[in-house]
């Protein structure tokens, strides 16, 4: 049991701070559950048997390691830096989300929780959670905004097929933010029996740290693979950032390698006005949303702003607290890419490489397409291709008039 220490200033509070960001801002009812989770995670992390079971599932069930693929035709068509793709899209269930879902699913089982709840935006985390719950024999309830249920209908049906109950959320913007609030309401009500399997590097401590740790495997593999293929570190790593789980996973092992640029790509949506995008570093301000202190898109009264992105997975008003710290320290750069550029990137990657990226991941592809031509052929860009685009066929058919 952690001791109750009131710190001299908030940045000196307990673990779970990234610079001044992070922390734990939740209703009191949840604090004991977060302490229990933190304790259980610390134990599991140090337990060789737990790590071995997770590694085995990541390899044989999820399909790790994922390839690092040289996108030769994309590179040639842009005429600049070499572009590599880290193929998280090839994982079971179609996105990086399975890394964390397996880790936390095993943790839930270890903690003796029989009921798992999750939120989802694009549905990839929901599908990953439903999958892991099926695998481990756990009851699964997924909260999803009504808007997202409509635009990611295929994933709703996948979750149901896997045995999960999908509960629509009709409050607020009816997207990821509202799904998280509803999941937290469920957790606060059923806290004694339920495990909340949060899907991004967000929320109250220990989630941002734990989720990052489960995705750290991305950058561990990536570092070995690029050294093997190129004999040196890349010029830049590019990843899309919604809550920020795939990006922090892809960045983490390179944070100490100062020569490697870390580029996070936020959703620029359809305009620069508040409500038209989800670029927290362009118009957001530090604040508290859903348990953590980070950059938040909000109005001058501290009410959380509506957001827009063509990709449900990036459509969120806040960002993981570790990204806020990396932003402020200048270690990572954050740019944005609008809906149109993301859609163009889908087409470009599909037609040069035969790879259909998720709309979320397409934001990172778009940034590579934007900056590659001005770089030298000796430069290396690695795009973390966090998910595949099958789930987006409805939107793509409509937007691209297929």
């Amino acid at each position, binding site marked *: 049991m952690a001791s109750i220490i*009131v710190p001299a200033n*908030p940045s000196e509070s307990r673990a779970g701070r990234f610079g001044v960001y992070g922390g734990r801002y939740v*209703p*009191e009812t949840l604090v004991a559950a977060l302490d229990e989770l933190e304790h259980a995670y610390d134990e599991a992390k140090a337990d060789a048997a737990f790590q071995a079971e997770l590694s085995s599932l990541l390899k044989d069930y999820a399909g790790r390691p994922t390839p690092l693929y040289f996108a030769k035709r994309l590179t040639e068509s842009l005429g600049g830096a070499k572009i590599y793709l880290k193929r998280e899209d090839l994982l079971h269930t179609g996105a990086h989300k399975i890394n964390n879902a397996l880790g936390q699913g095993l943790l839930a089982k270890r903690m003796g929780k029989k009921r798992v709840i999750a939120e989802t935006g694009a549905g990839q985390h929901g599908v990953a959670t439903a999958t892991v719950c099926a695998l481990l024999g756990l009851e699964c309830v997924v909260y999803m905004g009504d808007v997202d249920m409509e635009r990611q209908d295929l994933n709703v049906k996948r979750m149901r097929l896997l045995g999960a109950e999908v509960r629509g959320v009709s409050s607020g913007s009816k997207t990821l933010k509202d799904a998280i609030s509803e999941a937290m309401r469920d957790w606060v*009500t059923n806290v004694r029996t339920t495990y909340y399997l949060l899907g991004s590097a967000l929320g109250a401590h220990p989630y941002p740290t734990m989720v990052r740790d489960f995705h750290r495997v991305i950058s561990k593999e990536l570092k070995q693979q690029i050294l093997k293929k190129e004999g040196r570190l890349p010029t830049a790593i590019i990843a899309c950032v919604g809550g920020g789980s795939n990006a922090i996973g892809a960045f983490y092992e390179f944070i100490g390698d100062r020569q490697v640029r870390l580029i996070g790509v936020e959703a620029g949506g359809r305009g620069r006005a508040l409500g038209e995008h989800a670029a927290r570093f362009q118009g957001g301000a530090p604040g508290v949303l859903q348990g953590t202190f980070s950059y938040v898109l909000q109005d001058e009264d*501290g009410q*959380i702003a509506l957001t827009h992105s063509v990709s449900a997975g990036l459509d969120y008003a806040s960002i993981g607290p570790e990204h806020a710290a990396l932003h402020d320290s200048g270690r990572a750069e954050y740019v944005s890419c609008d809906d149109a550029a993301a859609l163009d990137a889908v087409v470009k990657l599909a037609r040069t490489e035969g790879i259909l990226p998720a709309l979320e991941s397409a934001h990172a592809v778009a940034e590579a397409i934007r900056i590659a031509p001005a770089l030298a052929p000796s430069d290396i860009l690695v795009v973390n291709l966090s998910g595949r685009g099958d789930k987006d066929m409805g939107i793509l058919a409509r937007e691209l008039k297929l």
Partner: protein
Amino acid sequence: MPIRFDHKPGLVVYLTAGDPSLDATREIAIAAIDAGADVIELGVPFSDPLADGPIVQRASERALARGTRLRDVLALAREIRAARPRAGLVIFSYLNPILRYGLHRFADEAAATGVDGVLATDMIVEEAAEYLAEMGRVNLAPIFLAAPTSPDARLEAIAKYSKGFVYAISRVGVTGTQQSVASDAATLVERIRRYTRLPVAVGFGISNAEHVAQVAEFADAAVIGSAIVELVERATRENGAETAPGAVARFIKGLGLRDAALAR
């Protein structure tokens, strides 16, 4: 003036400020005080009230749709304080509107309105150093929530840093009405009392005279939120906002509160 409970049990009434309008909230608060409320919690509407059930969520949405801002709630508090100098007044808010306003500025301005305390739903004791310093600087009572899930070490810290009263959450879950008072509540209050002589108020799901009578057996005060917010919603919808103060006053008079001096 310190928060005091003149009734047995004491009554804390939560109102979502600005629902159905700021003027209506003022009249409802005054009617509630005159009918027996010892403390009014003025709820600052928030876009993402994750600790609240559907009733308070709806009220917050209506208040925000009318453009209710934190500074309006502070102005409202000043009006209620002027009209009823002896009543307890607490600002009840999620953290983000306060942070955006500026903690220092908020503390100054809240104190200047004459409110007695502040309850920030998503502020827990571990994160509260700066918040406590600001509350202390302007002599506002920080009120923390204690939950049935809080272990003893947390209850001790919550009791230590709370002023005015300790708010005991009767059951796990979000705000809302319910059939009966959970058995969790009495146990929690007993555990809290090991660490403090402050009054303990019990809230979440307290909806009627029967619940209030149950709470009276083990706690100093009952907090009624959703039941009154729902009453305001219904009275406004069915008979107009001007009928809400009367409806709330009748509801409170039916709760069976007794004057604490006579009760002794």
